[in-house]
């Protein structure tokens, strides 16, 4: 009971502020501060969204599919690469610095090259999203694997732990905390990069829907798509957070906050 009340007391202020902002927006548009056909009012956005709901959901489904494929695929590749880099010392010294450097490349710019090479199908888009997700995860995971508590490592080596046991029972669990911070970054990136990938050319997905709507001077539709994209991004981030809570129960509550 008390707990619920605390949660509620944390939630309502931002919601009130948001509602206030929306009201101002609505008032500004109806009051004639902006032109309807440049900045639509919240009410008209909702009306338009309801009208084209089935189509909107079709596009949403396409974007969700692309996002999830890229996110899961990129995470898996990032995870495996980090583990390999960690376990094969020779590769580590050569590849890891490059990996860190490559984080600074805006992957999105590779998009047109991928389409050029692989056409307009699903594959180049998934690849693009994968590449975006892959870096934060492999870097976070690798640094997590590389430095677990030195005292723990020393203790277990003293009692004769094998390299495999060290990896599975000490380094990997330690790295999961880092893995989740990488997953959170990748989650936000993945929705964004899926939308950008859809700009590169396709008929399906919220990205292309936005593009077509804005070319056709239908601002309500553009705004509706943007709101759904934001919602998707927040949802994915929330799911990763939830998974983290479920997975890392052993952490002291204060630290987890």
């Amino acid at each position, binding site marked *: 009971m008390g707990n619920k009340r605390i949660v509620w007391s944390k939630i309502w202020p931002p919601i009130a502020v948001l509602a206030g902002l929306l009201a101002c927006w609505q008032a500004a548009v109806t009051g004639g501060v902006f032109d309807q056909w440049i900045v639509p009012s919240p009410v008209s956005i909702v009306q338009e969204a309801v009208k084209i709901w089935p189509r909107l959901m079709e596009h949403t489904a396409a974007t969700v599919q692309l996002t999830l494929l890229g996110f899961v695929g990129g995470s898996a590749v990032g995870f495996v690469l980090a583990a390999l880099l960690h376990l094969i010392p020779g590769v580590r010294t050569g590849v890891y610095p490059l990996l860190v450097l490559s984080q600074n490349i805006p992957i999105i710019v590779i998009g047109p090259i991928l389409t050029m090479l692989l056409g307009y199908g699903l594959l180049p888009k998934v690849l693009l999203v994968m590449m975006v997700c892959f870096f934060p995860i492999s870097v976070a995971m690798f640094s997590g694997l590389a430095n677990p508590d030195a005292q723990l490592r020393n203790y277990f080596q003293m*009692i004769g732990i094998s390299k495999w046991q060290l990896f599975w029972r000490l380094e990997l669990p330690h790295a999961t905390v880092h893995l989740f911070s990488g997953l959170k970054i990748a989650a936000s990136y993945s929705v964004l990069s899926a939308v950008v990938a859809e700009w590169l050319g396709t008929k399906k997905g919220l990205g292309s829907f936005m593009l077509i709507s804005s070319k056709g001077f239908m601002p309500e539709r553009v705004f509706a798509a943007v709101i759904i994209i934001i919602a998707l991004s927040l949802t994915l981030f929330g799911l990763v957070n939830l998974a983290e809570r479920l997975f890392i129960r052993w952490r002291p509550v204060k630290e987890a906050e």
Partner: protein
Amino acid sequence: MMSDRTENHPNTLQVQMIRKQFGKGLASKEVLGGLSLSVADGEFVSIIGPSGSGKSTLFQVIGGLEKPSSGEIWLDGKETTGERGHISYMPQQPALLPWQTVAGNIEFSLTVSGVDRKATKLKTKEWLERIGLDEYADAYPHVLSGGMLQRVSFLRALLAPQHLMLLDEPFGALDALTRLQMQQWLMSIWEENRRSVLLITHSIEEALFLSDRIVVLSASPAVVLKEFIVPFVRPRSEALWTDPRFNEMKQQIYELLKVGVREGVCSHGGIN
């Protein structure tokens, strides 16, 4: 009482002329300078030495984490120089896996030490009950106090099947009162379950209270300055603290350490 036991049994641990040098050439530093000592079966031996003299390094060598520059380690009559997994160990910090419960931690360490998984479960439960921590069996380590954590850490070392226990300043991070309680606690458990123990400590009182023999090391490069047989009968109690012989020995060891440190400083330009 202890001494006839030790004479009839082979040594659990034999450290023979161990030298350990870190680095090469001009930058090299000799930390262990030909150090020999032994621990008999069921004997409790303490090592006292100046800070930075190489005590932990000696443990790393015995545990097989560091290869000695020369010299040999023998455990239970077999040479084990550079081999891991022959000892049980209790470090200064508890070193419990934060993502494992208390019982899970003990069980995992025991399986690493080669105990059958099923056997670990029963044993762990039984012993946690015995030391009054059974209600924490399924708790994560961060819930426990420093003293409780060290008791778990000690239990984990005690239950391991290896004959020799290495304890590296096990109570160094605890407050004075908890430390005293832990010493008595460890004493009572050890007196019931005699194991071969090699303990590193900074406290002369602790060494006198717990051990059968005390080995005093010099500053680096560490060699054995002197060994003291601790004559007090077991079971020992707090009454020992006021025994005049206790204080006399304490004074002797203290004087010896003072000289050892000074020599170390003169010849090597400083200690940690």
